């Protein structure tokens, strides 16, 4: 799994939470452009992708990463609500959306359509 978020505190907590649930976190990125590079280099199965990034938006990253052959499953996250983004989440090609405060192994599995890592 690749975690993309510009807040180091959140990345650390998410990494700990998901590692405890059995996910292997292979990398982290703090902005959109490095996320695209890391995703290309590490070929993760899942990208946990914050929508609000300091350079390009998470939707742009999803478009760039999702356009590659054998793309990873992209799960968008935000401290805002899904309704704050309208249909952009649907159109982004991401597997789904999780509000950051709701992030857990259970909600992630629900979005990915599997029972666990």
């Amino acid at each position, binding site marked *: 799994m690749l975690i993309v978020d510009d*807040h180091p*505190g959140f990345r650390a907590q998410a990494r*700990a939470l998901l590692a405890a649930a059995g996910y292997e976190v292979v990398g982290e990125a703090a902005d959109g452009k490095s996320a695209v590079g890391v995703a290309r280099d590490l070929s993760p199965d899942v990208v946990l992708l914050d929508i609000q990034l300091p350079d390009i938006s998470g939707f742009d990253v999803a478009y760039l990463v999702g356009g590659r052959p054998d793309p990873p499953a992209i799960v968008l996250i935000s401290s805002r609500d899904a309704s704050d*983004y*309208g249909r952009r989440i649907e159109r982004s090609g991401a597997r789904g959306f999780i509000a*950051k*405060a709701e992030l857990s192994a259970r909600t992630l599995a629900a979005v990915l359509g599997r029972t666990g890592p």
Partner: protein
Amino acid sequence: MTGRRWGLLALGLALLGWIIGGEWVSIHAHVPENHFIDALPGLSFLLAGLVALDRRPSSRIGRLMIAYVVVSYLGNWGNLQVPAAPAIGSSIGQQLGGAILAHMALSYPTGRLRTRFERAVIGAIYGVAGLTSLVILLAFDPRAAGCAQCAWEPAPFPSKTAVLTANLVAQRAGFILVPLFLAAAWLRWRRATPAERRELAPLWAVVGVVGLVDLLGAFSSPYPDAQSFAYLIWELQNVLYVSVPIVFLWGLLSTRLARSAVGDLVIELDKPLPPGALRACLARALGDPSLEVLYARHGLDGWVDAGGQPRSAPESVSAQQARTVTTVERDGRPLAALIHDPALDPGLVQAAAAAAGMSIANERLQAEVRAQLEEVRASRQRIVEAGDAERRRVERNIHDGAQQRMATLALSLAMLRDSASRDPAMAASLDQVAAELRHAIAELRELARGIHPAILTEEGLPAAVEALADRSALPVRVLADFDERLPGPIEAIAYFVVAEALANVTKYACASGARVELSRCNGTLRVQVADDGIGGADATRGSGLRGLEDRVSAVRGSFRVENPPGGGTLVLAEIPL
């Protein structure tokens, strides 16, 4: 009487003597013509020339008229039985008159030729006339021409052939010079401004008269014992010539007539004028449709038009467009500037400005108020826009700061809760903290959305209104006839109109549903929120609707709340894009 006028009187008397003396010489030489009719054009030119010199000293037309009188009666003085007189009379006297008339016509009303072409044409006319005069002066032999009574010295180089050739050359040159003169006059007319054209109108009358006289010249004869028809034509020619200086003089003095238009202006301005009508009144009175009036803003060094719109300084306008500026002042302070055709008589413009003084002062005050209103409106719009930008910034700060920290906190709490699963009391406490945190997160999210919805920034107005409808407690139907983005402040104002209206529907209307319509038409965004409730909403009461009305009108939009006869409430905002 001033010295100048005494001088003019003396000149007048001298030239009166010149004309009468010329006729007296002709009578004594038994020239068989009507001496009274022969004197008439000269008297007319003399009188008009003197009046022109007196009233329009800056114009050279008066001097040209006087010159014409002197030259055209040389012919009569040629009958004097003294050496050289007949030669001078029949050379200069007969040749130069026409050249002076042409000069007068083309240089009217200032008496100054303007273009190189005009100077070339008039120069050529004088040149041909001068050369012909010179040849005649040197070669004319009246005895050879059949004058048996002529008892004076012949010319220095008597030659009948030279005289005939000179006359022929002059005649042929006329075939070229007359069309060139007409072309110069036509060019003059083409370049003229409307005010100049009015001034030039007498010139055309004169050109017409002189043309007619010249055409008739072929049939005329000054001698009554010749054919009576030819003599009649000669009389007609002289009468027509009488009109030439009168027409010139009328044109020169016509600004006096224009002053009566200023008199009409005074009457017109006596009644109240609608805004901006003063310009039209002044333009009419001065006969300059392109006239502009700018008003000075006191204390600000700026200029505005009647509508209060800022304008560049009159001096720069006049420099760019070759216009003349007449500044209207009161108590030493500039009140207004009239930007007008340079051909207008400065005295007339001053008279019109003085006549319209009170109206100009009034309209200046109105323009000042309009300018201030416009500034207030613009600053109000800037305040609303700055407010929107600030709301956007606050929402972003909440998102980047508190919301992030609370989300991270929620994750930490979830992990803590997992590790405390073996301690039921601790687990229960942590569950309670987590529930509180979820509430806090939800409330903060709602607060941020109320400050400025992220979806409006991300997706634009129709999507943001759809999201609003989805969250509404009542069924809300959204119809939008556009999908594109609008300017940020407009989107925000329209969004908050819908949000406030829908909140009111939910709280007070007892409605079963609502309908939101967003449409763009003729550069205006129309936002309409209708419900089927009990009605009774009033924009003048309640701070929510009042605040919306203020925001909409700050961007020059209109806002109203209606209670249609069929029931329900209709909130309608129209915002120019």
